[in-house]
């Protein structure tokens, strides 16, 4: 299990990185923490000819608050979110999500930009950043552009990024002081990829029922999914009014599954999604009951 041979570059500036990426053409690949890419290369499932390592680019590691939120350098590690070494504008959602990624040694190396570019919907950042309506700033020799995460992710390991484009920053808008959020990750063991992952965010009314709610689900399809139908079922209610089983039908519709044609594996997966969404809702309501 050794990676195939490749040209290795470790630039120290974004400009240099972009030049290398442009020169490499379609055979180039960017690596940051490498916690998802290196296993794939070790198994020879990914065989890039040129690898451009961003860990030497200082400017990609800086983060700052903005009037509307915060901008995080693309190679900000999960650990830096977890321990709030970067500003949190989400009232705890980013640190909470980061703490659930892999194991400590993985979080010390893996990066937010790398995770988004890798686009695995069973990983944390794609779903969480979609739910937060974050955007990535991407640069190439042709200029810069801002891409909402909701538009960035196309499927497993596929994004709208061009071969010569590099994520430089992730911009996250602040959560309002009244917004509530809840996240639940369902997995067999700590550190595993999710079997299901849900983020609920929105506003409650005076009775604790959901007034506005946005639900995002990861690990169900090849990209994070907005659950519009399920949101409608939740509207005006709280998790206590809703058993998970009542979310199954709207969820199946949101995911695009035919309940009558489902096998037992699919049925259990759907059940896990329903429970996960329910637990995310309940987690979001924690302040109401406190």
């Amino acid at each position, binding site marked *: 299990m050794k990676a195939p041979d490749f040209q290795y570059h470790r630039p120290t500036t974004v400009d240099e990185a972009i030049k290398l990426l442009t020169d490499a053409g379609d055979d180039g690949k960017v690596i940051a923490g490498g916690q998802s890419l290196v296993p794939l290369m070790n198994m*020879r499932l990914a065989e890039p000819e040129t690898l451009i390592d961003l860990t030497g680019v200082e400017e990609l590691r800086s983060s700052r608050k903005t009037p509307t939120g915060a901008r995080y350098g693309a190679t900000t590690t999960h650990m830096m979110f977890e321990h709030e070494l970067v500003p949190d504008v989400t009232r705890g959602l980013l640190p909470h999500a980061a703490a659930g990624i892999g194991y400590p040694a993985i979080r010390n190396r893996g990066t937010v930009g790398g995770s988004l570019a890798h686009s695995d919907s069973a990983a944390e950042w794609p779903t969480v950043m979609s739910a937060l309506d974050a955007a990535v700033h991407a640069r190439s020799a042709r200029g810069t552009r801002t891409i909402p995460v909701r538009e960035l992710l196309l499927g497993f390991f596929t994004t709208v990024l061009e071969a010569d484009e590099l994520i430089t920053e992730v911009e996250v808008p602040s959560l309002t002081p009244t917004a509530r959020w809840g996240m639940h990750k369902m997995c067999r063991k700590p550190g595993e990829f999710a079997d299901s992952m849900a983020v609920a965010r929105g506003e409650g009314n005076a009775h604790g029922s959901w007034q506005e709610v946005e639900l995002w689900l990861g690990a169900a399809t090849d990209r994070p999914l907005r659950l519009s139908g399920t949101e409608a079922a939740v509207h005006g209610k709280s998790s206590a009014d809703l058993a998970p089983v009542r979310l199954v039908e709207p969820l199946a519709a949101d995911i695009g599954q035919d309940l009558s044609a489902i096998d037992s594996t699919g049925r259990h997966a759907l059940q*896990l999604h329903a429970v996960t969404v329910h637990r995310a809702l309940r987690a979001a309501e924690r302040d109401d009951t406190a």
Partner: protein
Amino acid sequence: MAGRGYFVADIQLPGLREVAFVRSQVAHGRIRGISVPQTDREAVWTAARLGPFAEPLTATSTLEGFRAAALPNLAEDKVRYVGEPVALAIAGTRAEAEDVAARVGVDLEPLPAVVDFAAALAPDAPKVHDDWPDNIFATTAGEVGEVDAAAREADVTVTREYTLHRQAVVPLETRGVIAHYNRSTGELVVWSSTQTPHMIRDMIALQLGMEARSVRVIATDMGGGFGAKCSVYPEEITLAAIATQVDHPVRWVEDRSEAQVASTQARDHRHRITAYAAADGTLLGVEADILVNSGAYSVHPWTATMDATMASAMIPGPYRLHNYRFRTRSLASNKTPSGPYRGVARPAAAFSIERTIDELAHELGMEPYEVRIKNMVRSEEMPYVSAANKVYDSGDYPEAVRRATALIEHDAWRKRQRALPASARRRIGIGYGSFTEQTAHGCLEWAARGLAVTIGTEGARLAMDATGSFTLSVGIKTHGQGSETTLAQVVSEVFDVDLDHVTVSHGDTAMTPRGDGTFASRTMVMAGGATHGAALALAEKVKRIGAVLLDEPVDNTVLRDHAVVGKKDSVTYARLAKEFLFTPDHVPGVEAGLEVTHYYRPEVQTGAFTYATQVAVVEVDLDTGAVKLLDYAAVEDCGTVVNPRIVDGQIIGGIAQGIGNALLEEIVHDADGQPKSTSFLDYLLPGATEVPHIKIEHMATPSPHTAFGVKGAGEGGAIPPPAAIANAVRDALREYGTQVNETPMTPERVWTALQLSATTAEASNQATREATR
């Protein structure tokens, strides 16, 4: 702990080159051709090139009707499982060897694969071995007593089908082999991460057509074995053969994705059990129909029937069972060959009988632990000959159950279980698993199972050197069990010396007397027995030497505190050894030599029976099917405990593996026989969060058949956890009548079974309501 372990992958030799294998990517296929680029011809070996230098090994058995098939060193005509070695490449580094291997083209005609039990048995099934009439390695059957009469007498009958799916063994260090042929001495040295160095040496010599005196096998430090490293593998023979043909040493270190398909696997049992009982819970009879999916080939020396025959022998368990009928069929399939794994078939046997005992208890409305106590062999009946003709030697089986209920605080858990409101979305359950385990069996026992190699002796050589310190050489290979410590303790006890004056040498065939290896929980009994024999003989001689030096009768001397102590004076071992070895003329009348080799063979061939009862308390999430362990206790009796910390380590480690068996670990195959769990991302192992703090109590009844009453302790921990945990889940879901009959009990399996039973329960409630309307 300073990073000074020395494993096969750590060894540095001048000129050493690395090997990468080309392995079959399909489960079943006919090889049309293998293409190697011109520039790689020297670096690549195929069956055609290897053939003249090594014969493939055929595992044989004396079981009637057993079908043998050679296990190819490199596949020649057909491949029969994903991961089967087809070719290998040699280069300066492993990465470069993988580059070369990637350029080897294997042209295969895919054939339909035999994957599961039903497919293997189907009348029109494709055949794994073309010249066999079907896919059955062997069938065995037997009956003791009169099962049909028991059936007629029974007040209650239960029939269940249990499946323990396939597992990988997963020592954390994978296998590894280095072979080096010294042209000037003609010696072939093979380093292998193996539990059985002497056996590997014999088979390499035989398959290569060499005299064994020219073959030396060294097992260095090992990162676990658990059974995966005690068969003879094609990679060992292949590397040894190639080393004799090239001018440099070669090394292969198995990587994890190889290990998940190329190291022997285990379980893959399906048992159909019918049990008959009287209304008071007395077990009257049991029938067992046992299927084991053994994979593509038999491995030497165990063969593909090892699991099935062991399961049939151990299903009677610790119970007084007089009427027992069984049939076993060991099936060939397009999966990795099965081999030993900690517990060998007994986790499956225990699952079957223990789940069935609980089913009887539920039918009769009794506490399952009471049904156990009622039916267990009692201490006054020892020694007891079981329905499978095993001699249970000693102990108090029911007492282990009673102590287990106390240790787990059974009644307190029952209270907490009942206190949960019906509206809660979780349930608590308590489950028991008892077993009795044959350890350290002798030759006749292995012969009875049809083995061509009837393991059953073990050697130890103990030498006192001129400084009065001790070197013990044993044929076993310890790999983390701490046998160096426990064997040194035997010497220490006999001579009354501190442990740090005893060196234990093991694992190198050139340095140790012949032995069979470390497996089957035999080390302490067999190597311990050999060590004890050698130590007693040497001690007798040391006393005689001491008597001459002290000028006192031998009967006046004792061995105490590093010295021979007489009535008047004493002589330290250091002085005694120097006198005897430097100036033997000072010790007239004592024959030369200060070392003894002793071979141990147990008098009672059916071994010493370790037994235990384990209890699991689980919480089941009704919404997801997830099972969490809340509490766990084990009460066990492995005879005299030589070193409590080491025994506890074996038990807790075994339980952790049993938890993996019960809840997490499964090699999943798709319909084409493609394994889907070839990495740790898909094959889940228990971590620190999956193993609760385990409570242990020892009973320590000495075995009458072994030196100082020890029984084996290596495997027992791993045997009952699947049964105990399944019984606990069944107990938790008792109100729904959910059957929990498969391992691992994944959330999907538990939840799906719950839905099925809840629907049935709902339907029957509905029917009752309608009937009473």
